[in-house]
């Protein structure tokens, strides 16, 4: 065997285990799903007649599809700014060489390691309209109470607050690491130039954190668009479908209503949306650099 052939053999031998699992459980479903989306296959089995683009056109004309897409976008819009800004703010505070910093870090990051069901059960209990702690305190302060998860005005914000509690620690950590990587010399130099703390924040810290911010934003936006667990477990998409996210609608159509073909088509439409958002983000941030 030639030397190159032997190298090839080695190379493929090493990537093969990964490629097998990847091929079977990531690539194949993409192709199979595409095929499914062109048919009316049902969860119950049976025949799956080819219907061309019917599922796609049905989705595009389905108000529930657009509403669900909007809810995913809405969720992203109301969670991303707080998660980014608060993450940075807390990291800035924690960076001031404080005693007890690791305790604070632990308290704020700990929720991140919890499974979604634990988070939603704990917060569902806090939000309980009659016996929950939040309404209990509001009532004691003579403030109006709300049916947090059962009122269409408050349901999405309530899920958002829970999500912020759950995942803020992640951004907090990233920003803290980013801050600690900024050499002191930059601050010292700008202080010599007469900059105060505020100037330093805007002209030194934040620009130098740009790379971290980019990563945080990209991860945050994509993860938020794909939201499923909290909504499924806290509101089931309600009240009156006001929190039903795209992924949840796909799940419902596929596994509760048995329309696997339709659910597959919507998954692909959603996939295109995600691709577009990612591409947009990459272009935006690549250009800046």
């Amino acid at each position: 065997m030639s030397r190159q052939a032997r190298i090839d053999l080695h190379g493929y031998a090493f990537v093969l285990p990964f490629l097998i699992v990847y091929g079977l459980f990531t690539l194949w479903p993409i192709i199979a799903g595409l095929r499914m989306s062109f048919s009316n296959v049902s969860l119950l089995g049976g025949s799956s007649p080819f219907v061309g683009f019917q599922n796609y056109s049905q989705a595009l004309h389905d108000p529930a599809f657009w509403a669900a897409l909007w809810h995913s976008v809405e969720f992203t819009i109301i969670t991303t700014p707080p998660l980014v800004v608060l993450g940075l703010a807390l990291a800035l505070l924690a960076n001031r060489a404080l005693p007890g910093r690791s305790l604070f870090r632990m308290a704020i990051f700990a929720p991140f390691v919890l499974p979604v069901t634990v988070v939603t059960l704990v917060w569902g209990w806090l939000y309980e309209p009659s016996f929950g702690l939040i309404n209990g305190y509001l009532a004691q302060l003579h403030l109006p109470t709300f049916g947090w998860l059962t009122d269409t005005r408050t349901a999405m914000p309530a899920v958002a607050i829970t999500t912020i509690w759950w995942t803020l620690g992640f951004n907090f950590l990233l920003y803290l690491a980013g801050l600690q990587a900024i050499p002191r010399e930059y601050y010292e130099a700008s202080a010599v130039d007469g900059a105060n703390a505020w100037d330093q924040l805007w002209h030194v810290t934040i620009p130098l954190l740009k790379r971290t911010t980019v990563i945080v934003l990209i991860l945050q936006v994509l993860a938020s668009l794909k939201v499923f667990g909290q909504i499924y477990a806290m509101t089931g998409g309600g009240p009156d479908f006001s929190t039903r996210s795209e992924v949840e609608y796909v799940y419902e159509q596929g596994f509760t209503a048995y329309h696997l073909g339709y659910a597959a088509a919507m998954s692909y439409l959603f996939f295109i949306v995600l691709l577009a958002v990612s591409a947009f983000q990459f272009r935006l941030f690549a250009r800046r650099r």
Partner: protein
Amino acid sequence: MNRTHQTLNRQSVTRRSFLSGSLAVGAAAAVAACASGSGSASPGGKMTLQYWNLFSGGDGTRMVELVNGFNKSQKDIQVKATTLTWGTPYYTKLTTSTIAGQAPDVAIMHLSRMASFAPTGIITEIDGGLMSKYGLAAGQFSPKPWQMAHSNGQLMAIPLDTHPMVMYYNKTLAQKAGLLGPDGLLKPITGADALVSAFKSTMSAGAKWGVAIDTEDVNPWRLWTALYAQLGGGAIVSPDGKQVLLDDSTGVEAASFMRELSLVAKVTGPATDYPAAVALFGNQKAGFFLNGEWEVTTYQTDGIPFDVTLFPQVYGNPATWSDSHSFVIPHQRSASPDRLDAVMQFISYVQKNAITWAKGGHIPAYTPVVQNPAYQALLPQAHYHAEADHVVYDPQVWYSGAASTLETDAGAAFQSVFSGHLTPAQGYAQFKTALQQLTAQKPPQI
């Protein structure tokens, strides 16, 4: 060079032992990967049956009693019951597990779901001969559930109970409000105004809310159905499910009464979820409670002074919403006559001991138990089992039934009427639109 090798060798040893340890875990898991979760024979020759239900209310305790009783009553069969969350998660799991060949041996199904499950092959026909082997016969079940248990002339389920919506009331508060008759029972209340003022009077007597109502999920649908029927509404869709037969003014009037309760007369909270409604009555903070009868055990355990009576007659016709539970046998990849036999033995036991189930509030479908004086004497059950004569079920079509799309859509629309997010006309219109869309859809193919 040699030093590097030495250091690396020491690290390699620990790495190697780590990897061999994890390979061992992996191998064990690979073996376990072939293991699945369906019922199997346990050591000692006992057959373990998997039984799924969704009884997480006060009646759940009674089912546990029945299962334990059956397990103790003989030594060959062990029934393992799993209670799954009520609603679409339960039915989705039942469906996906059956298609994957991992179905439980026996499961509970609402009879209102017969039209959606029977044509799919998920549930199997019941063997009449096997039924009689264990002493169960066709004539021994209440007529309406028995009829609903059939599809295309085949028996697909064995009815367990009928569970209508009733009215609980707190005796102390009702007494203070002057609502009790000389026999200590609630005086009959007829008409919307009388009902609302009865609710209000308990609030003056100290209750936070006149009536506790779960305004979330599918409960608003149930209330609306009862009110619509009381107004003489009739069937809402044609028998084939393809035509909407709603009467708009009746539908809006029924929805308006819901708004009346929560936002006009303010005798109930505009956004109360199920646990809160149960607890409100249980903590004696509500004078009345409109709900299915399955929380009787809860309140008996709580020890509060309560009774239960028929659903109030708000409008001309006495009617209330109801559904029925039944036992079904899901399709198995390889049917085993022994297991089927054991399942029937279990079902027969539960039917014959249905008085325990009745203690949970339900009205048994097995008439020998219903006719038994012991059941007739059960309180508070005796005060409402006449309800079974006036019940309205969900339309018997594929998109309807417990936790179906129809119920979810209707519940969402009428929930908004309770909360004020939608006016009664808007809520009704949203429901009607959703119903029209359902009638236009094709049922899932087999």
